[in-house]
Every structure is written in structure tokens, then in C-alpha cells.
């Protein structure tokens, strides 16, 4: 078996809560791996810890326990060596945050290529044009500034910047959420292309399950800092074994079907991380909850009849919903 590109083993990220002054675990003993040229989706509601996890993988959050390694080497605690920073790049929801408003696209790309990659001015110019082509932008945009471009174009430029140093892994945090539907599809497909053509792996964080289903090979569902279900995308979406995954799927509005009573949808908000319920964290919103759920925290395991590698953290994951009372 080959070493995964990125491997988290029981990784946790803790913060001190401002209001209550207690420690909260935003990411709680998460094990997840991303292999080379693989696209892994991470879904969950706001506050589920998916962004904290993303930031951990690029060194913006510190690991408080467990381990996180890249190519088998633990991620360093302090300042990352240049080589590692080149290998893992992040793409944000708002491309403005990674673009310099005063510089043209060409200047921003060449600067990175000259300083970080060590290309000459002429080489950097040529490579910048290639990178724009890679993200399907016309070469004319080399002279454009961010505000002269559309949201979709800016996100493509942000991706081109992330590609300058030839990364092995892109960590993309809601990269298409701020885009118009008509251009969103193009950026989704671009991630698929980059994987195919450059072999880049992607950790794709999104609240949009439909987008994840169209793009990702595997998906992990997060709830209150933990992964509650994980498996190949097709499996998790067609045979969800955790009631939270089913609730998320039921809540998505559909274009093709008229309104139905969203009986499968959960009510209310997730409880605060500072006041975790005993046992299963989902039990207060769960339609299946029983006394056992308050007493015993469910572990991730392969449910009966599920495909290999498909795991869920629910005491009742062996039973599909149509078989449940």
C-alpha cells in the first residue's frame, strides 16, 4: 500500500472559547486521508469544523493532539519549510482575499514564479500565460486587475496562483460558493481537469452536497468536529447510513420535484461545542435516538451490508431507513 499524500490520524484542533473561557475541540479526533490525484469532499453545516480542519492541513491551525502528515512526514509545528508550502496550496471562497487588487494578473503570477520558483523574467512571463490557459482564461487577462474581472475569472486566477509552484494538494475551502450558478459549473469542472491533467489532489470543503457529489471520489461528513460518515461518494449518497447524512440530503431543495413535507429533515441547530451532549453528539436532533445513544458514543465502523471502506458513527447504522420502525 502506498503512503497517502495527506494523512490525519485522530487529529484534533482546540480553541479557547471567548465567551466561556473553556477549551473547545473544533476538530475532534479526525482520521482522514487524501491520496495522490484524489478529490475528497468534506461536508457539514457551519460550525461543523470543516474549515478548521482545512486550515490545519495548510498550517494555519495548530494540531493539539493526534497526528497529521504529508507524504509520510509529520506537518511541522512552527514555520513551514518552503518546499512544503509549495506542495500544499489553499484556495479560498473569496478570491479577493488571495489577489492583490493593485497588481495585474500577469504581475502577480510572475512575481510568484520568479521569487518562489526562481524563473527568469522571460520564463515567468511565458509560464504565466500557460497557467492562464490551464485555467481556461484568455492571455489578455494578464494585463487585467482583479476588479476588472468577473467573480468566476477571479477564482480561476486564484487557482492559477495556487498552481504556480506545482502543488501536489489543493485545499479548497468553499471555492465555488460565492460564484453565480452559470459560472460555478465551469470552476467545478476545472478541479476535475487539474486532477486529470496535473495529478493534483484536492481536499474540497463545501456545504453544497450536490457539488460534492458531482466532483469528489470520496466524501466525509462532519458534525460538531467529528466525521460521522465517510466513504466513496456514490456509496454515501445512495446508501447513507448516518441519520445526519440522511437529514442533510433530505434538506436539499430539488429543482425537479415539487415541494414535499421535509419529514426527514432535522429540526433546530447543532448544540454548542462548549456544551456537548453525552454519548452521540447528534442524538438531540436525531429521529432514531434511544437511551443507548446518551450513554455510549458511537464509533466509526463499517455497517452491515455497506461497501468496503464505507463507515458511519451510529449505533443503528446496520439498519437502512426503510427497515426502521
Amino acid at each position, binding site marked *: 500500500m502506498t503512503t497517502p499524500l495527506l494523512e490525519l490520524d485522530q487529529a484534533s484542533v482546540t480553541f479557547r472559547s471567548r465567551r466561556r473561557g473553556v477549551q473547545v475541540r473544533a476538530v475532534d479526533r479526525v482520521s482522514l486521508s487524501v491520496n495522490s490525484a484524489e478529490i475528497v469532499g468534506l461536508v457539514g453545516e*457551519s460550525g461543523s469544523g470543516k474549515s478548521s480542519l482545512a486550515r490545519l492541513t495548510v498550517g494555519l491551525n495548530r494540531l493539539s493532539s493526534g497526528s497529521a502528515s504529508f507524504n509520510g512526514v509529520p506537518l511541522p509545528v512552527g514555520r513551514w519549510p518552503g518546499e512544503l508550502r509549495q506542495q500544499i496550496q489553499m484556495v479560498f471562497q473569496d478570491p479577493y482575499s488571495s489577489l492583490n487588487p493593485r497588481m495585474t494578473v500577469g504581475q502577480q503570477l510572475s512575481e510568484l514564479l520568479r521569487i518562489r520558483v526562481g524563473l527568469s523574467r522571460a520564463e515567468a512571463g511565458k509560464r504565466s500565460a500557460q497557467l492562464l490557459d490551464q485555467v481556461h482564461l484568455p492571455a489578455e487577462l494578464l494585463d487585467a486587475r482583479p476588479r476588472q474581472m468577473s467573480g468566476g*475569472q477571479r477564482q480561476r486566477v486564484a487557482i492559477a496562483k495556487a498552481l504556480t509552484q506545482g502543488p501536489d494538494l489543493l485545499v479548497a475551502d468553499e471555492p465555488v460558493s460565492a460564484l*453565480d450558478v*452559470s459560472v460555478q459549473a465551469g470552476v467545478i*469542472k476545472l478541479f476535475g481537469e487539474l486532477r486529470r491533467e496535473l495529478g493534483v489532489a484536492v481536499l474540497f470543503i463545501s456545504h453544497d452536497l450536490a457539488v460534492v457529489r*458531482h466532483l469528489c471520489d470520496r466524501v466525509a461528513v462532519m458534525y460538531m468536529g467529528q466525521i460521522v460518515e465517510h466513504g466513496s461518494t456514490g456509496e454515501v449518497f445512495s446508501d447513507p447510513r448516518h441519520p445526519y447524512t440522511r437529514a442533510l440530503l433530505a434538506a436539499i*431543495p430539488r429543482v425537479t420535484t415539487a*415541494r414535499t413535507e*421535509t419529514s426527514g429533515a*432535522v429540526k433546530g441547530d447543532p448544540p454548542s461545542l462548549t456544551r456537548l451532549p453525552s454519548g452521540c453528539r447528534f442524538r438531540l436532533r436525531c429521529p432514531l435516538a434511544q437511551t443507548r445513544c446518551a450513554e455510549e458514543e458511537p464509533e466509526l465502523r463499517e455497517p452491515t451490508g455497506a461497501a468496503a471502506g464505507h463507515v458511519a458513527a451510529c449505533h443503528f447504522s446496520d439498519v437502512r431507513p426503510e427497515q426502521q420502525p
Partner: protein
Amino acid sequence: MSQPVDRSEGALLEVSGLSVTVTADGRPARAVDGITLHVGHGEAVGLVGESGSGKSLTLRAILGLLPPGAAVAGGSVIFDGYDLVGQGSRALRRIRGTGISMVFQEPMTALNPVVKVGDQMVDAARKRLGWGRAEARDHALQLAKQMGITEPEASLSLYPHELSGGLRQRVMIAAALASRPKLLLCDEPTTALDVTIQAQIIELLARLRDELAMSMLYVTHDLAVVAQLCTRVEVMYAGRIIERGPVTETFAAPSHPYTLGLLRATPDVDDVRAELYAIPGSAPGVRSRPAGCPFHPRCQFASTECESGDFPLRAVSRTQETACAFPERIEGRARVAPDAETGVGT
């Protein structure tokens, strides 16, 4: 469910030929270009468009809440018999208070930062409905519960800044509903929310529509939300309505290539067989709208005839209208992705 398109008589809201100009650097540009639409009693109408289409400006012009630099350049807005355009702010406030509420994408713009959120809801119900404090309080609590707000008593005694974004949004919607408006104007109120919360709010709005015959004009970019909530849809592009009709028919068989493109671009969580379609290019800015059909540079069915002339809405069936001159070119193409697509330069 479907109604004839021209049944605007006795509508609660009638917008005719509404135009809005935005001025920047002393140069005016027409952002909303002669919009005509109506909302019937108890009817929910979706106004769909992408950024820059003019959908939010249309909604704000109806209420006289245009941002600085934007002004109504023509047309009329008749609500319940009153023309709202050109009214003074006092008259507008009276009309708004008694019949129209609006919910925004940004809740902080609508909530008073120095009044507890529960008091804001209670005040709205007392002022508009003449209710007593206790009655208004019960009503507020009930609305908060229906919004899926856990621990409503505790949440309502907080100030807006103390609430999380999702909670604040729900409180704003509850405050807008507290005065039992005849017409609710919605500007992407659930876009920033989690799907689980969005589902609860859509369910609540649908119930209010049915039980209280509340009318809604719902602005969004999300076709699926429109499908859940609205009976009719108006699709906007570059300041104009380019397609309208009953939701079910329009989404099943769109008659404008832009609507078709939007449907194909929307990922379907239940079906991954259809490949996603990216509409080439991006929506034009207010100052760079093309001549002829505004969609022609991005349209895969366009021909030279589309590059000049007028493209007014016209009926293609008893219930559907389109601004496309060649709707037969997309006939029968429902939601199947085209063979060649690139998404270049979007």
C-alpha cells in the same frame, strides 16, 4: 397549479415598465430596463437571476429602498391600489408598515443594533397589528420556534450582535413576519444559511403562504428554492425579464436558452449522469450590455439575427412567455447536457 400569464387584474402588486438607473462617476446607466410583473393575492412568485441582473434593485425599487446613486427612471408600482413610485417617505412608511415586509440577505441591515431582538418583534406586532404586549410576545415566541430557533426565550432576549449569523437571519425573518404582511419581499434570505435551516424556513414560508394567503416576491439565484416555494417564475437577465411562466412547466421545458443553461448548470444531488454545463462567459455589467438579445454572446443557439433589434417577451404557449426569438431551437432539450462545452473564460 398553473395560471394564465395575463391574469394581473386585481393583483396585490403590479409593477409596470419599471426602470432603475444607477449613476457612477456622473454617468447614468439603466440597470433595470422596463420590468413588468405582478403578484396575485396569496401567490408566491420567484424572481430569478444572477449577480448584476437587476433582480435586487427591482425588489428595492418596489419598496422605495434604493441605495444611493440608484433612482427610479420610470414606470409604476401599484400595491393594493396605491402607487408607490414618487411617494414621500412618510406615505411610503405607512404603506410599508401596513402591508409589505422585506427580508434581506444581510440581517444586520434590517435589525436595530441597540434593541433586543425579541423587543423588535414585539414592537412590530404591537404597532402594526395593535396587539397587546403579552399577545405580541407569545406570537414572537411562536414564530421563533417555527424558525427552528432552539431556546427561543433566551435567544430573543439577546441583542443582534450576540446572535450567530444563521440565528440573526431567522430572527430578521421572524421580525418581518411578526406584522403579518400581505406581501413579503425576499432578497435571498436563505442563501447564507445551512440547508437544514433553509429547509425549515422554506417550509414555514410555504405554510404562511397557504394559511394566511401571504403573497411573496422571492428574489434568488437558486432555481431549486423557487421550485419548492413559488408557483410562477420570472427569469431576469441584464435588467430585463427574459422568460416567465408557471414553475413546473418552465423548469420542465424552458423556452429561453438562458433558463435552459441555468438548469443545466445547477448540480443535481440525485443524478450525476447529466454532465454539468457551464454557460460560457459571464453576465455583462450594467455598462457593457450587448445590443440585440442581451444573452446572445453567451448563447450556443445564437445566430446573426440575435445581434440587433428588440427582443420583447412574447407568448409561446397559454402560460409561458419568452424573450427569445427562436425558442424552437431549444425545444425538447429539457435538461440534457450538450455535447460540446468548454466554460472558457467564465
